[in-house]
């Protein structure tokens, strides 16, 4: 049943998000072509065209950031409308237990946020790819050499493990973020007026408490931990070891929030 819930929620979000993703990729391609043209013609572009190029850069950047934000907003509104809205009279009478219902939605939402981040990455890669393709052969060779040097250094210093851990941490972080958002929506639904306000306040309160607990446990659960690498030239393995605690704490929060949200859904549901 969890898989069924996941499937339908995933498709429902996809319908809303896919057009935006497609638009963003196309715009990025356009941006890439434009930048490459600029490069090749060696800035032989005059005033008014530059303004258009400037606007294009802003729009593309907005899209790239925006698609991630849109993905999150879509997940919040979909959770809210399918459980607490008119659709709730269908969703909540499905023969599915609360854990599967919540789990399926959580998985679908997390996957879409992850996809939106990856697609943003692809968009940026497209732009750089266009630039690269338009470099002269000599410049391309130079770029390739720099790149393979970087890879070699990364391997030596164990950056791949660091990268892998970072990816894992991001994924868990996304799941934790989504379940926090769900929790805030459900908390907002406990009151009859100003539900959105209560939800937003709940989010800030929870985030604050989380950061306090993080510092209490001496866990660096954000990109701060990488500062140590750069500034103090810490050994990569030390950073990785510290990184695990951050991931575990994140996971623990996610699990706790899951149970609280599940309790709210099974005990306090009060559909109009």
């Amino acid at each position: 049943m969890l898989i069924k819930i996941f499937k339908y929620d995933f498709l429902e979000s996809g319908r809303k998000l896919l057009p935006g993703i497609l638009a963003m990729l196309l715009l990025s391609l356009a941006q890439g072509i434009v930048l490459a043209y600029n490069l090749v013609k060696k800035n032989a572009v005059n005033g008014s065209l530059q303004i258009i190029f400037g606007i294009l850069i802003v729009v593309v950047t907005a899209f790239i950031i925006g698609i991630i934000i849109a993905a999150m907003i879509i997940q919040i509104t979909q959770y809210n409308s399918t459980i607490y809205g008119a659709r709730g009279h269908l969703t909540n009478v499905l023969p599915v237990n609360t854990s599967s219902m919540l789990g399926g939605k959580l998985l679908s939402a997390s996957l879409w946020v992850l996809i939106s981040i990856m697609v943003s990455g692809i968009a940026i890669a497209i732009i750089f790819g266009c630039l690269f393709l338009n470099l002269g052969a000599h410049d391309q060779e130079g770029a390739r050499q720099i790149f393979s040097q970087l890879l070699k250094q990364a391997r030596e210093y164990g950056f791949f493990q660091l990268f892998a851990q970072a990816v894992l941490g991001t994924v868990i972080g996304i799941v934790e973020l989504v379940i926090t958002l769900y929790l805030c929506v459900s908390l907002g639904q406990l009151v009859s007026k100003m539900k959105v306000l209560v939800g937003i306040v709940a989010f800030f309160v929870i985030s604050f408490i989380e950061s306090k607990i993080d510092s209490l446990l001496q866990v660096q659960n954000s990109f701060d931990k990488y500062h140590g690498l750069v500034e103090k030239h810490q050994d990569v393995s030390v950073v990785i070891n510290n990184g695990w605690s951050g991931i575990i704490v994140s996971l623990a929060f996610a699990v706790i929030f899951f149970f609280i949200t599940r309790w709210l859904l099974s005990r306090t549901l009060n559909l109009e």
Partner: protein
Amino acid sequence: MNRLSCTNLTKRYGRLTALNGITLELQPGKIIGLLGPNGSGKTTFIKLFNGLLQPTAGELLIDGMPIGPDTKAEVAYLPDNDFLPEYMTIKGFLDYYEDFFKDFDRKRAEKLLEPLGLPLSQKIKTCSKGTKEKIRLIVTLSRRAKVYFLDEPIAGVDPAAREYILKTLVENYAEDAVVILSTHLISDVEPILDDVLFIKNGNIVLHEETDSIRERTGKSVDELFREEFRC
């Protein structure tokens, strides 16, 4: 085994008591009218048995089981609002419904949808209000459920549509099921009711067979209702 039962079922919202300690047992094979004015507790009763609300006190069971996924698989609910996913096509919705409800008789639903003349590829959001009502009714009654809850199915609906709704109900409900039909418009539904429950301010004040009421009082249930609930 009682198909549906509750003991001291109570629901309070702060100071307001919507249901006041109801104890009831209902057997299969009957169409039962849950009759009362607006605000008497009919919808609260129905939502409790569907797991859309939690009781403040008391116990409720369907087929001896507490409310949960197992009872939801046996209960068909037609609420008084629009729960259809707007973005789905009719076929898409039938797929979805069939995927979750094992007792959904898809062939029956498609047969009932035929006279509406709609292509299955039509999106639900482009259907008219009346069409959507019919779709909701058809999918609900196409389930071979053990309990049907119809919450105000004929309110705000023209006489021809009322006839259609009641006829579709009698023709399609699973015969050994309990059908609980809540309404405040009694004369239309009276001929199809086996039993009636009068609910007033959260209490059941009458639970009797329709024909027994007519025999005993010499009145129709509608007339008795008007007397009982006169302001």
